[in-house]
């Protein structure tokens, strides 16, 4: 049946609602089609996301928008024959679900209609009934699963209702051919729907469950990291010694894989699961162990851990979901790090940076009146993916150090509000307000966290942008030591592309944000350079002192052995071109003549080293009495010869 014929044969929205009103337990399901008002939306529903994880992210966002406190994603990993996403949110009434089916992409969120259907707050169409700022807006989130599965089921219930509404959906593949058979104003059919009501004895329960049970083979392959395993196991898909396969090693941690012959059996030779947590670990500890395993790989010979090498697709997906979702941080929100926690903290204020006091247990949140990430304790949000309870895998404390001079991480906080005063809102997109932190640390892991991440209402769909919104300064090494999050509290929504994974760079909000970020980065980099230079100078000074002390010890030891307890001390050696220079008991060497010219980096430091070294040798010679018979000029010539030999040896 063609799309228009299929849509025409289906009951109208009103007819279906009436039939469902009169629906009786045990009655056969009603059938209709999944409809989009616009074929562009149908096309969008068909697939705009890059990865299976994106579709799961959309379902998590839907649960958040429905005031859920808990979402559980259950898979039969590593087989991925079935995925269930279950939340305890407000659920949908039959009317809401029917509306969704008849108007894909025509979400009632952010409209007055949303309030009537009970999916938005009273009086604020941009918030959930409990006041969470909505993440979703156009209503394709649910149908993003079309990219994962050819069929799925929605089971939903609102508290107090004595039934659940159930819909089974079989998606249709979008083709360009169907467009030509369609006329303007006609609805596009994106799939078939069976809908019915089931009596519910658990009147007080609420929530929505989505079961994906016709997972597309390509999706399964991605979730199974099939490409990696095929390279490891060979084309047969099973390990057999001597078979032809690429020299690829399994990622450090993985969920294993099933055999090519039988997807109920785990490949054991190479692919037995290798997870950083135990089955008995509670979900929050299991996730912490996953995050720790990535950071700790720095100590296991992986200086720059990256998720691509360390984790298989599924574990990477868990990581990305934890970055994307509006979740608490694993340790604490960066705004809640106390100023005495061992980091150097700054406020990005005015045109520069202002050092915040480091002896106080006060937080930047209270000091600078920052609001992002203040999760109401009465409405927590918990996301479970199989064994794991996700939380933001961002570490700010106890970071690994390097051999570099600057070791203390620098944490900068800033905020900005742009009201575009005098500009028509239709042009500016309204007010933009955001808060931010920028962390400089000797090491940031994983490498995927180098860059900037923009969150709108605490959620994001993008990855860290390692170019920092195309920051034009070539600071390659320094850029890998920076990670930044922007928390947008007002505006920016309109700048997000439909997939929420990228933005429209021409949008005024993106332009303002980019300028702010680049200005902030310049100040951060300047401060980091200053701190690094000071640290380097201090280290050199300390090193010099230590070396000079070591030389003095050698000389004293030799002097004491040769001269015994005669009450004398090794002579002092000074290098000076000052004709008035005097020394009580020792030698004065003409500096330039003996040491030559020192120029370039750390010239003074190197010169001091040379003075200590040559001086030390001369003092040892003196201990043996070898200088006693030489003229001042000969002593100087001897020092020059020794310096040349030492320099030639160094070269």
């Amino acid at each position, binding site marked *: 049946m063609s799309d228009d014929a299929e849509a025409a044969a289906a009951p109208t929205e009103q007819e279906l609602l009436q039939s469902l009103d009169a629906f009786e*337990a*045990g009655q056969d*399901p009603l059938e209709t089609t999944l409809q989009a008002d616009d074929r562009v939306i149908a096309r969008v529903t068909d697939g705009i996301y890059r990865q299976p994880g994106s579709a799961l992210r959309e379902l998590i966002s839907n649960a958040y928008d429905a005031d859920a406190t*808990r979402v*559980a994603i*259950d898979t*039969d990993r*590593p*087989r991925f*024959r*079935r995925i*269930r996403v*279950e939340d*305890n949110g407000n659920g949908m009434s039959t009317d809401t679900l029917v509306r969704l089916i008849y108007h894909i992409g025509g979400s009632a969120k952010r409209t007055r209609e949303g309030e009537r259907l009970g999916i938005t707050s009273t009086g604020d169409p941009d918030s959930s009934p409990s006041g969470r700022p909505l993440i979703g807006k156009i209503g394709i989130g649910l149908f993003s699963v079309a990219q994962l*599965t*050819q*069929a799925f*089921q929605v*089971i939903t219930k609102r508290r107090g209702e004595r039934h*659940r509404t*159930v819909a*089974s959906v*079989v998606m*249709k593949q979008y083709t360009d051919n169907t467009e030509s058979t369609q006329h303007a104003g006609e609805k596009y059919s994106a799939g*078939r729907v*069976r809908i019915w009501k*089931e*009596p*519910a*004895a*658990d009147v007080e*329960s609420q*929530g929505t*469950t989505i*079961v994906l*049970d*016709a*997972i*597309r*083979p*390509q999706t399964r392959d991605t979730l199974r990291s099939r490409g990696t395993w095929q390279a490891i196991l060979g084309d047969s898909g099973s390990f057999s010694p001597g078979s032809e396969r690429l020299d690829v090693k399994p990622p450090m941690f993985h969920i294993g894989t*099933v055999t090519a012959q039988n997807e*109920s*059996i*785990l*490949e*054991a030779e190479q692919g*037995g*699961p290798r997870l950083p947590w135990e*089955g008995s670990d509670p*979900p929050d500890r299991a996730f912490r162990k996953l995050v720790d395993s990535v950071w700790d790989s720095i100590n296991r010979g992986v200086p720059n851990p990256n998720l691509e090498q360390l984790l298989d697709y599924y574990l990477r997906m868990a990581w990305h979901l934890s970055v994307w979702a509006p979740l608490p941080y694993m340790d604490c929100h960066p705004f809640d790090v106390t100023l005495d926690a061992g980091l150097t903290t700054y406020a990005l204020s005015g045109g520069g940076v202002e050092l915040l006091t480091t002896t106080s247990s006060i937080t930047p949140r209270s000091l600078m009146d920052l609001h992002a990430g203040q999760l109401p304790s009465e409405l927590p949000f918990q996301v*479970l993916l*199989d*064994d794991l309870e996700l939380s933001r895998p961002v570490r700010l404390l106890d970071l690994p150090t390097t051999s570099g001079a600057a070791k203390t991480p620098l944490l900068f906080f800033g905020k900005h509000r742009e009201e575009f005063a005098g500009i028509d809102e239709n042009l500016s997109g309204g007010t933009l307000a955001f808060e931010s932190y920028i962390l400089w640390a000797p090491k940031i892991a994983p490498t995927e966290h180098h860059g900037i991440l923009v969150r709108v209402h605490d959620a994001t769909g993008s990855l860290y942008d390692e170019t920092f919104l195309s920051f034009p300064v070539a600071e390659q090494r320094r850029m890998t030591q920076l990670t930044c999050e922007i928390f947008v509290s007002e505006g920016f929504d309109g700048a997000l592309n439909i997939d929420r994974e990228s933005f429209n760079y021409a949008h005024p909000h993106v332009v303002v944000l980019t300028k702010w970020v680049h200005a902030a980065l310049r100040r951060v980099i300047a401060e980091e350079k200053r701190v690094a230079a000071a640290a380097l100078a201090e280290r050199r000074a300390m090193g010099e002192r230590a070396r000079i002390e070591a030389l003095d010890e050698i000389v004293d030891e030799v002097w004491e052995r040769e001269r015994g307890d005669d009450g004398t001390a090794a002579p002092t050696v000074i290098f000076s071109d000052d004709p008035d220079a005097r020394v009580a008991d020792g030698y004065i060497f003409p500096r330039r003549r003996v040491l030559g010219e020192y120029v370039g980096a750390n010239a003074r430091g190197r010169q001091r080293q040379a003075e200590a070294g040559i001086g030390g040798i001369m003092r040892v010679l003196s201990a043996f009495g070898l200088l006693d018979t030489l003229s001042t000029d000969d002593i100087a010539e001897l020092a020059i010869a020794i310096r040349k030999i030492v320099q030639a040896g160094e070269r």
Partner: protein
Amino acid sequence: MTSEFDSPSPVDDSEIFALGSYEFPELSTREFKPWHKPRKQYVRRAQWGAEIERLLALRPGDERTLSYLGLPGSDLLDLRYILDRFDISPGGFQFLGFDVSALPQSPDGASLNVALTEVRSDERVDSRSDIIGDDISLVGEENSLAFERARVLGPFDVINLDLCGGFAQDPAGVDRSLYSTVQRLMNIQFRNPRPWVFLLTTRVGPNAFESAVLAELRRLIESNIRSSSLFAQVLAENIGNPTEQTWRPESPFTPAALREFSGLATVGLAKWFLNCAQRIRCEFSVAPTLEYTVYGGSPTADMVSIAFRFDPVAPDPDPSGLAAGGALLPSEISQAIDIPEIVARVVDVDALLASNSALAGELIEESAELLVLARYDRDSYMAWARRTLEVS
């Protein structure tokens, strides 16, 4: 139209499509099934519930948790029963179920999905609880996903193998069998430091046993007969003195021959589980046994529900005497001796309900409560349940 120049398709359709047709899977109709009968409620109440109650009573303090592995069917009645009857703490009930309705596009899939949503919405259910579509006998296979799931969720307080057919119908010595499944479950249960129970519902008629398996069960009993005259005496008094003919009754079966055979076979099964218990250092006992008739033409009960109790025993005492503590595992024969008498005291649930209408009425009510939770119509059920009692 293809021509000779067209290259063959590089992929199989199954590599592109999860569904071959743009149609819904056939839906199964929700009819009342044999396990909806009031007698099954008696098994739940008198045996399963009683055993769980006993386990919970053994817990120190007020710990109210329960982990369960079973075959709950797409209605999840057993899980609902446990949640309905027992006071379990939030997140304290963890289950792993095996049912084909969890397979993609299964006719019962929609029903299971709703049932699972209902049960999992109970705050007492641990979020890792799940029903998987694998056949439970896959647990017996090395490296199976089914075993891996059980390993991660286990050990369990209750394992409930509530079969429609016979436990002993699989051939012996293969990976994918219920014996291998039990053996591998024992690997998991070995880690259980607390008493636990294995519930088994199985056919026990002469056709429900694979011949080599029956021969092994016979050998287990005969070995006890040879080694213990007391066991031989107890067996003879309670079940009978087994002869070649007892083990191989000939059709048409007389009620007496059937009773003796099923009694012996049940003792044999219990003996096999006793041996499992010995291997994982557990004391073993058999709880009161129930039976009922599934096959209409059978002159005696052909289905038995039996509960095997496992109670872990500490390691043997240190023979050198350096270390204190330890315990001795009772000998196999000392624990086998009680089995024939317990098996002989089996209660025929059909007969019990036929003779006790008050009890039957109670069970119909209780079953109805349970089935309403599973979205069945109360009145239709009551009418159906009464009819089944009249027929039986």
